[in-house]
């Protein structure tokens, strides 16, 4: 009964979405406030119905109702509660349902917190947003119904894919979707602005918090996914340039560009057409990612069982929305007056530079991701575009962005003075340069790219924070503290976010100095890493709630003293034949000792042991960036109804 209620809620949501798509738009065209007033309750009702459907599916999962095909295929009574719960989105149907749930959540948030948005803009935005949810609800109901029943009902389910049974992966998809799908509302705002033919600085001010919210979610979601891959897949890698990872990186890159160009639009009423285009492209890349992941044109750990009908359906949605929005853009864009022009050496100029390079980097990732598909379709040749391609294209294009970051932060609007900033950044350049020299001396200059990267990272960290120092000490040391406290939060947030980028660059560059030992070890054997002795103590069999495992015991000695025990293992889950790795990690400072075991033969076990200095910075960096984004959301200068803005940021924080 609950399951049928969920199904019915979806159908009802489709009807409501259809109405909310048409009526407010008509109202805005005719200037009829009563018709436009349908938008808010329509958006709220869609969210309520989707929440009901999602709750129904969750109830079926938690209660192990195997008469529902989706539950049967992806759950098992032996699974711990958290994985029976996260199993809801650990499969195609459920994850699309979550997708639409978050889509309607953003619509509902605009309805709830957007009272200061001009009525027509809000109505048309919600109408566009509803058209997206209508399209995806059709997709769910026709090709991916999570509520299909099985008869007779099986006694036991087939269990969730073991690699997905992990706390990190329980949180990763919802967080990622806040970002991925969050850009839908930005897209809707852009389409609405084009429909209404009004694009100005006020639009940017309204939209910026939404861009920021989506960006925070996407940043954190990607970082979490990367950390999961690092500890779960057992190879110690954190980014594989897998097409599915690229599908999340592309919206991030163009979303980051959008975040910056919207600042120019808000402050200087310039780059308007470009910002609108970026808003459309960012969500288009999200849709493209959804298509790549869901259609089965790619093979990846993220791709669930695929069905050609789904691919065609999503492709249709993709063409409709991207094509429609770009057509609208082509028709209306030229009528929008171009904004002010400005000097190349200025804050605006540096933000344009940021946009140019980020877009180019995004294009490089796009080509690297799609080229193999195109080549195979055209010639039948199968190729793999992997790290070598992206290292040769993506990294050089990102380098100028990172290098210019501390400069851009300090440049004045309208007309900046590069020389005086260069002299102010002297300390940062010095510290960065000395770091690079010190690393080069201690490692005998083996890896030039890594040395440059480390120097660059340190330069960015120091340079970003230096901006705050300069601003605080502008009128002498006496009132520096009060000046610092008086700085707008957006300024502090920008410095912190840029520092996060620097930290990440340091972490990534330091991967060049990782140490690796691969050995077949018998009990009593030891390997040496980072001056520590890691002694193998033997392996034993362990039985968990829904798996059987081999767990190895390692003791870590520093000199003569034992500092830790590590227990990497391999698990075989009930109903599955293939084992999964459980790595063990020992954090030392910002680095980690990382152990994974392979097959055992006799009393010997294949062991992979790594020492990864500074590795945690790879994820601390993005985490710092996300937190900075949240801080920026609390800024008073997002000044539409300031008191309410603060509350809203708090609620968004809680929702994430």
């Amino acid at each position, binding site marked *: 009964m609950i399951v049928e209620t969920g199904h019915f809620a979806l159908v009802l949501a489709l009807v409501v979405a259809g109405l909310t798509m048409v009526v407010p738009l008509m109202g805005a065209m005719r200037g009829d406030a009563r018709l436009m007033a349908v938008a808010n309750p329509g958006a709220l009702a869609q969210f309520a119905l989707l929440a009901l459907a999602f709750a129904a599916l969750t109830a079926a999962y938690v209660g192990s109702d195997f008469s529902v095909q989706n539950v049967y295929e992806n759950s098992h009574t032996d699974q711990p509660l958290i994985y029976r719960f996260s199993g809801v989105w650990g499969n195609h149907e459920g994850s699309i349902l979550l997708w639409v749930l978050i889509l309607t959540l953003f619509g509902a948030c605009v309805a709830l917190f957007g009272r200061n948005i001009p009525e027509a803009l809000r109505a048309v935005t919600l109408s566009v947003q509803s058209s997206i949810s209508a399209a995806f609800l059709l997709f769910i109901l026709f090709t991916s119904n999570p509520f299909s029943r099985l008869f007779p009902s099986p006694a036991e389910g087939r269990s969730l894919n073991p690699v997905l049974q992990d706390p990190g992966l329980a949180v990763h998809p919802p967080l990622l979707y806040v970002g991925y799908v969050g850009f839908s509302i930005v897209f809707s705002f852009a389409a609405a602005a084009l429909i209404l033919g009004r694009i100005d600085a006020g639009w940017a001010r309204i939209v910026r918090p939404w861009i920021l919210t989506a960006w925070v979610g996407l940043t954190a979601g990607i970082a979490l996914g990367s950390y999961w891959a690092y500890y779960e897949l057992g190879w110690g890698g954190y980014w594989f340039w897998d097409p599915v990872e690229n599908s999340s990186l592309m919206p991030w890159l163009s979303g980051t560009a959008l975040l910056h160009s919207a600042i120019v639009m808000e402050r200087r009423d310039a780059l308007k057409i470009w910002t609108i285009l970026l808003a459309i492209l960012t969500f288009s890349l999200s849709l493209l990612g959804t298509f790549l992941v869901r259609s089965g044109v790619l093979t990846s*750990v993220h791709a669930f069982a695929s069905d050609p009908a789904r691919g065609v359906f999503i492709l249709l949605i993709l063409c409709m929305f991207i094509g429609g929005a770009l057509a609208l853009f082509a028709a209306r864009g030229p009528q929008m007056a171009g904004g002010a022009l400005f000097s190349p050496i200025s804050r605006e100029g540096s933000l344009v530079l940021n946009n140019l390079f980020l877009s180019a*980097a995004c294009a490089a990732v796009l080509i690297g991701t799609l080229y193999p598909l195109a080549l195979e379709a055209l010639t039948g040749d199968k190729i*793999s*575009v992997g790290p*070598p*391609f992206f290292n040769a294209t993506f990294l*050089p294009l990102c380098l100028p962005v990172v290098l210019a970051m501390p400069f851009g932060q300090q440049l004045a609007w309208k007309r900046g003075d590069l020389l005086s900033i260069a002299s102010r950044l002297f300390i940062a350049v010095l510290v960065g340069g000395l770091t690079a020299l010190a690393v080069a001396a201690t490692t005998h200059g083996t890896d030039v790219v890594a040395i440059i990267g480390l120097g660059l990272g340190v330069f960015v960290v120091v340079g970003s924070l230096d901006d705050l120092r300069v601003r605080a000490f502008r009128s002498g040391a006496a009132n520096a503290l009060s000046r610092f406290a008086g700085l707008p939060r957006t300024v502090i947030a920008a410095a912190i976010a840029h520092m996060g980028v620097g930290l990440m660059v340091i972490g990534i560059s330091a991967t060049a100095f990782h140490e690796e030992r691969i050995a077949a070890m018998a009990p009593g054997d030891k390997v040496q890493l980072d001056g520590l002795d890691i002694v193998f103590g033997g392996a034993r069999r362990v039985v968990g709630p829904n798996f059987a495992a081999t767990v190895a015991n390692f003791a870590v000695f520093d000199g003569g003293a034992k500092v830790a025990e590590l227990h990497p293992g391999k698990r075989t889950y009930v109903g599955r034949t293939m*084992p999964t790795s459980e790595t063990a990690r020992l954090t030392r400072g910002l680095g980690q000792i990382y152990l994974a075991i392979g*097959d055992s033969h006799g009393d010997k076990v294949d062991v*992979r042991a790594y020492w990864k200095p500074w590795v945690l910075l790879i994820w601390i960096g993005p985490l710092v960036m996300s937190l900075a984004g949240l801080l920026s959301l609390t800024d008073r200068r997002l000044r539409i109804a300031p008191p309410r803005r603060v509350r809203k940021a708090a609620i968004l924080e809680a929702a994430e």
Partner: protein
Amino acid sequence: MTRKQRRLTLIGAAGLVLAVAVGLILTALNDRIVFFRSPAEVAELKLQPGTRFRLGGLVENASVSKSEGQKVTFRVTDGAKSITVNHTGILPDLFREGQGVVCEGTLQPDGSFTADTVLAKHDEKYMPREVSDALKKQGHWQGDQPGQGGQPK
């Protein structure tokens, strides 16, 4: 600067970045990509030793032998031809005889293949699509006219 000069600076910068990006991408597409080959294609195309590619197929039954250290040798087959693969390191969790595998590495003068990475499929339901396609192609090739249907491209 005049309005016109500023506009030109902007367009010039955009054009420059675009040119750099296009240049980087084209160069990288020329020499930074790796082709996927099945054992039959390797024989057919008479690939030169030292060629770097991804070799995909099934791990031949009873072909895996591990020697001292972390050295492992196995044969990859697509039903028609098979190639000996040498690898040093730990094999992935899901590496099994009779299962799909993708190895990246270089062809040796003796016709064997030295793999620096070995990827197995992610779970038991899923086979690397390159591998299943290669197998399908081989099945078709054997069933039809030998030596013609299997032509790649």
